[in-house]
């Protein structure tokens, strides 16, 4: 009975509506934050920080963004890669062409992406479901094409551009640890914002549209405004993730790299992690980042040498199968598995 909620009574609606109503969860959250902020930077190797944690944090942010749109508002999008690219290139051009301070650049890049998201969300006025999914591919292809025009990379001969120095209020984010901290802070803050949005009236409107848009309209929700708001917020998150991807993780930008398969990867994260769950987005991001690495490391470690190529094929197959598996067995993904574990802990050691 580690996970006991008995004896914890909510005396006010405010307490009942807190993000984490249970004391155990609060303790756990604080512990986890302490670990993330204090322990990991001390113990994690360069490789773990640089090649696992950084992309994980950034992907988690993109996944939260996409989940707001798909999981909460029910508008499926295959244009995530394109929107990440918009964020990254907007930030690069703002940073290199203007004297704006970096935090403003980040914010503006997010807003520009949000605007782009709204623009490509407009067909949602008339188009629904997978029709809309396919038209978001238009965003994907068009945006990547557009960002390949030489103006956007300032006529770089190779089209690949190096990211500028990130200076946050005088803090020059350079070392791996710095970059980890910046990504972590942004993720924690934005995850909190996302959580606030989804538990608020905005989130309820999104979910109403998702669950039954006709009924939502009849109880007075304006479908268009609500959907566009979801597109805007989602794109803002995705755009910031794009900035971090280029500026903090890769250190370079290349429009082609934000291709349709990036969009699929982020979609996988939210399906596997859990549609309509902020926690799920983060779990899914970790899963998608780690699985390929496990597949590369584990077979050779247990004496089953597979060629690098074979590992990749197996990986593609496994991801495809996992998508099917999760959709069939647990459409709420890993987030639901997590709450089932909590449920069990609540009763432990009793089976019922």
């Amino acid at each position, binding site marked *: 009975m580690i996970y006991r909620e008995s004896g914890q009574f909510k005396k006010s*609606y405010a307490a009942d509506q807190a993000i984490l109503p249970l004391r155990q969860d609060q303790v756990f959250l604080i512990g986890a934050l302490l670990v993330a902020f204090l322990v990991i930077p001390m113990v994690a190797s360069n490789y773990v920080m640089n090649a696992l944690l950084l992309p994980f944090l950034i992907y988690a942010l993109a996944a939260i963004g996409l989940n707001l749109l798909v999981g909460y508002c029910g508008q499926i999008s295959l244009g995530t890669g394109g929107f990440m690219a918009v964020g990254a290139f907007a930030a690069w051009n703002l940073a290199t062409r203007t004297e704006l301070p970096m935090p403003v650049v980040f914010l503006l890049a997010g807003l520009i992406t949000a605007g782009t998201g709204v623009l490509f969300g407009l067909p949602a006025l008339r188009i629904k479901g997978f029709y809309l999914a396919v038209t978001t591919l238009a965003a994907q292809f068009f945006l990547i094409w557009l960002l390949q025009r030489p103006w956007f990379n300032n006529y770089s001969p190779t089209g690949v551009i190096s990211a500028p120095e990130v200076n946050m209020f005088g803090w020059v984010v350079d070392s791996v640890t710095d970059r980890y901290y910046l990504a972590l802070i942004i993720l924690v803050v934005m995850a909190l914002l996302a959580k606030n949005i989804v538990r*608020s*009236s*905005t989130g309820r*409107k999104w979910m109403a549209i998702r669950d039954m848009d006709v009924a939502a309209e009849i109880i007075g929700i304006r479908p268009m405004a609500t959907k566009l708001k979801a597109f805007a917020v989602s794109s803002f998150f995705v755009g910031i993730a794009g900035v971090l991807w280029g500026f903090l993780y890769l250190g370079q930008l290349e429009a082609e790299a934000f291709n349709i398969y990036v969009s699929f990867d982020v979609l996988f994260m939210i399906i596997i992690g859990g549609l309509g769950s902020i926690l799920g987005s983060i779990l899914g991001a970790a899963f998608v980042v780690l699985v390929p690495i496990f597949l590369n490391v584990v077979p050779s470690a247990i004496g089953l040498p597979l060629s690098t190529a074979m590992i990749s094929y197996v990986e593609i197959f496994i991801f495809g199968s996992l998508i099917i598996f999760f959709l069939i067995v647990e459409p709420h993904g890993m987030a639901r598995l997590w709450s089932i574990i909590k449920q069990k802990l609540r009763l432990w050691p009793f089976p019922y």
Partner: protein
Amino acid sequence: MAANAADVTSRAGSSEVLLKVEDVELRFGGVRALRGVSFEIRRGEIFSIIGPNGAGKSSMLNCINGFYHPTSGTITYKGQPRKAMRPYVTASQGVARTFQNIALFKGMSTLDNIMTGRHLKTKATLLENAFWFGRAKREEMEHRKFCEEIIDFLNLQHVRKTPVGTLPYGLQKRVELGRALAAEPELLLLDEPMAGMNLEEKQDMARFVLDVNDEFGMTICLIEHDMGVVMDLSDRIVVLDHGEMIGQGTPAEVSNDPKVIEAYLGVQEEGEA
């Protein structure tokens, strides 16, 4: 839930016309779902629309709340004739409804469904919501309090946090009523609220309908198949058949109207003829 308390009048309703339907016609391609329907709903009354299957009852409700747009004819609400209007505009003018086939938000809890009904009363902006500050937090508490009252009223306390998709049918109908009440509407459209219920559930639901009308003074427009219920609850009734209005009046008048009897028993009479 005192917003409309001032309007409370007797069960018989006032003489003020809340909604006036004049000569409404609705066509889908060649099908005429409604032809020349006219009636009035007075503030504070329980008004019922009855008729056999396919009579156009739900189509009529859909016209009233803007989901369908009449091909011709006018609908006057609170003295203002309406042109084609999106449903959310109608809702913002104080019309709420429930649905024949339950249209709840399945992925959300009972509480969240009812809270969604409050959304027209919410003013917090996206940014306030994101930072959980200002109106966002304050309104959330106020609405929560209001919705808890509805939950108490409808006896839904035990399923407050349950996803509605997993609730039994009768409870879902009740949650849907709760969601409509949360909007504090002036006109409440109920589309077969008792369909598929057992006797006990029907009695409960009838009680709720009466209480809503009595205590909160909401005007109710009801579609129902169960004649017993309709006759007991309604102040006035309109009868539709094949999209045409064939009778109107108090329960007593309607139940003695030969055209109505014919429409309901028409099949047998034809068989005898």
